[in-house]
């Protein structure tokens, strides 16, 4: 089994920030901001040194949870610092990005990382859509088309034109071609049937975020059966799970950490913009498979009830290992992308949880072999 560090550039303010979206830029303190980037770098260098298999970056906007709106810039910035781990873009929010530009960035990053790039595709949430004024009712269609176009742009050897529903390009001819041929390992992060079908039909991996073990198994089993329908069988390397984690010396210490650092900072309805996207979001997200919906503006679990415990993995190293193994055994998950950073978690506490994990859980996890 493989472990990935979800490397967030978390802005941790000394005083609680208001909930809602967007957060006013006036509340951003550049000194804290600078420190948060330095802390973020330390985390990912440590994880690389300790043997994590991947370091991942995501795209988020207008909030303190992950102040790194462009995952490709983050990956490029650390490509030389990270010596061993693969660098995973999990993920570009596709409806917000020009698909040809995404293809170009991914291809470049594959070289900058010496062929260590992992690619993820994501649809995103209603509030993120508004960063670039994208109509949320179009994002499903935009995502599907964008994935198809990016794959073509990365693999098609001759210049071509594209007449889509949402995108039109009369000339596409991406340089460089990816170093990893034909493609870097690529995942669709989704619980929607359409996107899972896309992953299955294009022989791509599937990523599920933050769901309880049972609904994760349900989604992954459905994906597996779709893969068989398309004439192939995925291995555990095709199954990715993104999870929240809090490790302590004891279960009690970990639970105390959750109470202190992971207090729920969901979108809420504290601003007009948040109310608007929250209302529309709950209408639009009806068709995702199985797993409970995450909250707009934040990709941590919405509530303890949603996952059966406050985070996906909480406890002592032994407890956490058992919980991870459950996803491996029950769902066939081959890689877990861990979010150690709670919304109110200062750097020292993150490093402690991370170190405990790296020393006492990671080696055991990496010994778990495929059930596929």
């Amino acid at each position, binding site marked *: 089994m493989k472990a990935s560090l979800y490397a967030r550039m978390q802005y941790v303010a000394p005083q609680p920030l208001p909930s809602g979206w967007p957060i006013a830029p006036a509340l951003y303190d550049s000194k804290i901001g600078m420190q948060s980037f330095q802390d973020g770098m330390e985390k990912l260098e440590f994880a690389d040194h300790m043997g994590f298999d991947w370091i991942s970056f995501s795209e988020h906007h207008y909030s303190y949870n992950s102040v790194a709106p462009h995952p490709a810039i983050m990956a490029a910035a650390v490509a030389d610092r990270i010596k061993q781990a693969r660098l995973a873009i999990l993920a570009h929010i596709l409806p917000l990005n020009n698909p040809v530009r995404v293809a170009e960035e991914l291809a470049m990053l594959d070289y900058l990382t010496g062929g260590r790039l992992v690619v993820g595709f994501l649809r995103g949430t209603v509030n993120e859509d508004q960063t670039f004024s994208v109509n949320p009712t179009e994002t499903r269609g935009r995502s599907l088309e964008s994935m198809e176009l990016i794959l073509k742009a990365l693999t098609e050897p001759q210049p*071509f034109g594209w*007449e889509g529903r949402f995108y039109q390009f009369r000339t596409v001819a991406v340089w460089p071609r990816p170093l990893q041929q034909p493609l870097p390992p690529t995942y669709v992060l989704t619980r929607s049937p359409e996107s899972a079908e896309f992953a299955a039909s294009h022989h791509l991996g599937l990523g599920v975020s933050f769901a309880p073990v049972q609904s994760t198994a349900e989604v992954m089993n459905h994906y597996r059966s779709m893969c068989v329908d398309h004439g192939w069988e995925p291995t555990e390397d095709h199954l990715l799970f993104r999870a929240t984690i809090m490790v302590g010396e004891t279960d009690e210490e970990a639970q105390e950490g959750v109470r202190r650092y992971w207090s729920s900072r969901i979108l809420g309805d504290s601003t007009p913009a948040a109310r608007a996207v929250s209302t529309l979001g709950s209408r639009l997200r009806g068709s995702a498979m199985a797993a409970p919906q995450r909250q707009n503006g934040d990709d941590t679990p919405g509530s303890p009830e949603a996952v059966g415990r406050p985070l996906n993995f909480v406890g002592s190293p032994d407890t956490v290992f058992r919980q991870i193994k459950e996803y491996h055994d029950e769902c066939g998950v081959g890689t877990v992308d861990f979010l150690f950073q709670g919304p109110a978690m200062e750097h020292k506490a993150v490093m402690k949880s991370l170190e405990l994990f790296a020393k006492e859980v990671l080696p055991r996890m990496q010994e778990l072999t495929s059930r596929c």
Partner: protein
Amino acid sequence: MGQAEQRADTAFTEGHVEVDGLRIRYVEAGQGSPVVMLHGVGGLILAKLHDELAKKYRVMAFEMPGFGQSPANTASQSVKDLAQTMAQAATQLGLNSYALIGTSFGSRVALWHALQSPQQVDLLVLVAPTAVLPERYTMPVVAPDQIAKLLFAHPENVPAQLPADPANVAKEMALVQRIQGASRDTELEDKLGQVQTQTLVVFGTADKVVPPAMGRTYRERMPNCHFVMVYDAGHAVATERPEALSNTIADFLDLRETFIVSRRDGRINP
């Protein structure tokens, strides 16, 4: 001339020309530069593409001899023969130079036409062409009730069609199989590099009859070729994404190779 099919909104008029003892039907609408259209194995079916093109061009869509209501065509011995016949048919209509659009099987005829009479073909458009096929390719054969599944990316979205007359289908298939010979036309493939005509090749990304990746072969071998993918369309591109196809073709016919330069107005408010 009588009234032709009403499947398109535009009123097409119908006429006939005689070539090599064959009586060839065509339908015509619109004014402007001439556009000659050659259909696929399904025969001449007027659709939105014809409508759209007829708004700006003089569109002449032929029913190739041996298709539709015409008698069995035993005169054409090869696709090359048929291409020559169609070139003469266009000449009989007084056309010296025109844009030529071939769909599927019609693209083979169109390519041979462009090779044999390059002076007549000003621009060439090949939609879901079958002129280049993979090695060891065989044309998929499916039961009649599975045809929609083969032709469309989303058969569930396509209105049910009246079943084709089995006698007609048998007649047309016999002709296609006889003159097309083995599925690949290696002579034609070898000559692609000789086609100097500015060419647009269009494939649906979900074409299940011919792999859309074949489009790159035209792009590689033909010196003046553009390859365009129409997203989420099957082999029957004109039925599934009519606007995407007609806009692309119209831009190409209007602007020739400069159709790749965007003219879209990006302003939201003045």
